[in-house]
């Protein structure tokens, strides 16, 4: 960059407190980005999207691929991440949610096909199964005092075992009784991503504009302080575990309709890993107190684009995880640095 360019930037840049020159311009640009936690990951998502659009060799922009990208790859990560963000913010984590994804459809299938439950009621109980798993996670974590990492590791394995045992490792057909409602949940091509966007909006508002959200931040930011202020921290954590389970069950039903199949392999740790990755890339801290829903949304979009786009341009799935791992590390380092910049900017 030339000297004049440097000077122009130095002279027109709004606050004159920071360092000047090229480094200063970069710092100021970063500061602008850093003001909104979500901005960084938003820029990355847009850049990745454009990269694959410009790469003409693939059919990235075709309708069928866009449905695949948004409704198949991205939606489940977004929806599960919503629950994980709330849990991470209040200082907990749910490793079991991926197996709720797997077990909820089976549970519903057992209720309709073996116990004669009407379709809608079976769906309701399928969703309630997720809530119940959350209740159990909350009980062991909050009431008994087992760290949630261990609790949900345990309940995750239990659910995995339940899926394998009750299904005898066999897939099942979607019960005819529940087919009708499927188009609303997942069968219409854009339905999943519409759900994901709506839920994201709701969860963003809950986090930033309701007592529940503020108290979730408080529980993770200063547990003792939140208690001293009279916040029922246990209730907050219980609630967030139950919401995470509910979202897992909902994704399970979406997957069932989307694939038109109930498979024992649908439940795995992978869902949770993707969701936590999305949350972390989006600016959610593992230490609690900090996180954003919008950031996690775009974090999930980044993962979705990578999962969908790389095979299209001929990169095999094998090195994908190298990129994922690097992305997590870069995102974490960036977050730590941006937080520092942000705080310096506010002093």
């Amino acid at each position: 960059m030339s000297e004049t360019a440097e000077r122009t930037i130095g002279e027109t840049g709004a606050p004159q407190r920071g360092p000047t020159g090229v480094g200063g311009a970069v710092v100021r640009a970063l500061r602008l980005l850093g003001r909104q936690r979500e901005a960084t990951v938003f820029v990355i998502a847009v850049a990745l999207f454009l990269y694959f659009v410009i790469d003409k060799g693939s059919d990235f922009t075709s309708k069928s691929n866009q449905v695949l990208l948004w409704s198949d790859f991205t939606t489940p990560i977004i929806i599960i991440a919503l629950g994980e963000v709330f849990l991470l913010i209040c200082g907990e984590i749910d490793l079991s949610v991926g197996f709720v994804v797997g077990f909820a459809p089976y549970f519903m299938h057992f209720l309709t096909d073996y116990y004669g439950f009407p379709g809608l009621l079976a769906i309701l109980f399928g969703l309630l199964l997720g809530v119940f798993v959350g209740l159990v996670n909350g009980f062991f974590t909050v009431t008994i005092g087992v760290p949630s990492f261990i609790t949900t590791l345990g309940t995750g394995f239990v659910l995995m075992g339940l899926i394998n045992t009750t299904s005898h490792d066999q897939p099942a057909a979607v019960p005819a009784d529940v087919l009708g409602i499927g188009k609303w949940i997942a069968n219409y091509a854009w339905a999943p991503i519409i759900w994901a966007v709506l839920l994201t909006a709701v969860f963003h508002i809950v986090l930033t504009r309701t007592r529940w959200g503020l108290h979730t931040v408080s529980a993770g930011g200063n547990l003792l302080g939140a208690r001293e202020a009279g916040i029922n921290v246990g209730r907050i954590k219980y609630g967030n575990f139950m919401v995470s389970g509910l979202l897992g069950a909902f994704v399970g039903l979406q997957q069932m309709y989307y694939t038109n199949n109930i498979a024992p392999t649908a439940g795995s740790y992978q869902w949770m890993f993707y969701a936590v990755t999305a949350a972390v890339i989006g600016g959610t801290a593992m230490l609690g107190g900090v996180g954003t829903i919008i950031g996690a949304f775009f974090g999930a979009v980044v993962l979705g684009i990578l999962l969908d786009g790389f095979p299209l341009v001929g990169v095999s799935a094998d090195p994908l995880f190298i990129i994922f791992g690097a992305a997590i590390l870069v995102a974490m380092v960036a977050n730590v640095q941006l937080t520092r910049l942000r705080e310096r900017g506010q002093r």
Partner: protein
Amino acid sequence: MTASTPGESELVNPGGDVLLCEHIAKNYGAVTALTDVNLRLKRGEVLGLIGDNGAGKSTLLKILCGFQPPSSGRIILEGREVSFKSVDHARSLGIDAVYQDLALINQLTVFQNMFLNREKIRWPLVRNGIMRKEARERLDAVGVQVPSVNAPVATLSGGQRQAIAVARSVFSDPKILLLDEPLAAMGVKEGAIILDLITRLKREGNVSIIMIAHNYAQVFEVCDRINLIQGGQITLDKPTSETSAEELTELVVQEYRTALEERQRAERSA
């Protein structure tokens, strides 16, 4: 008290002290934090609670604000025996506290902290506009300056944080205010903000204050009466005018001396 029905607490001390503690004790398992505390707080006064580390000052405070229940003993608030179910319950009865750690959430803004757990809501949303405005007004009223009510409290100085915690606690116009070391870890200048605030509250006369403190100079500046707590009970109760920093120091030094002698005796016999 023939008219009192079950569930309704009886009048014990009508018209007298605003708060009365009788034989309060607190055990944590085998550890005894408070043995037998008898304390009274008169309407409108500032009571200084002093004592060695571990004497039970904070334990007593956390009982009085509903954070934890006593193992035994009675608390009589404005003549009625009460047993606090929670911090919220005590607050609803007019007792508010500023804890040693301030109970501020670093990640939230000044106004969000000031309304923590008493947010103004129009269901289901919190009303940020009105909370910002009221926070600003309240801070102005008590003379506390912050860069912005929208700043995260993490970015504020120790004195500002302390001032926000105190300003927050007087939001609901409590009858009784409990302050745990409101001047700890603060410079003279910053401490002056808080002392000013306490003096102002005292002058307005609507609130009675119990204040834990280490610094005797500050205690003598604002407190009307002083209670010394030693070994889980109150061993001295005098108006500020009838005691002196020397007397208090002497009592505490004596305590150290006794403890030292006991240790030496134990070592000799061992």
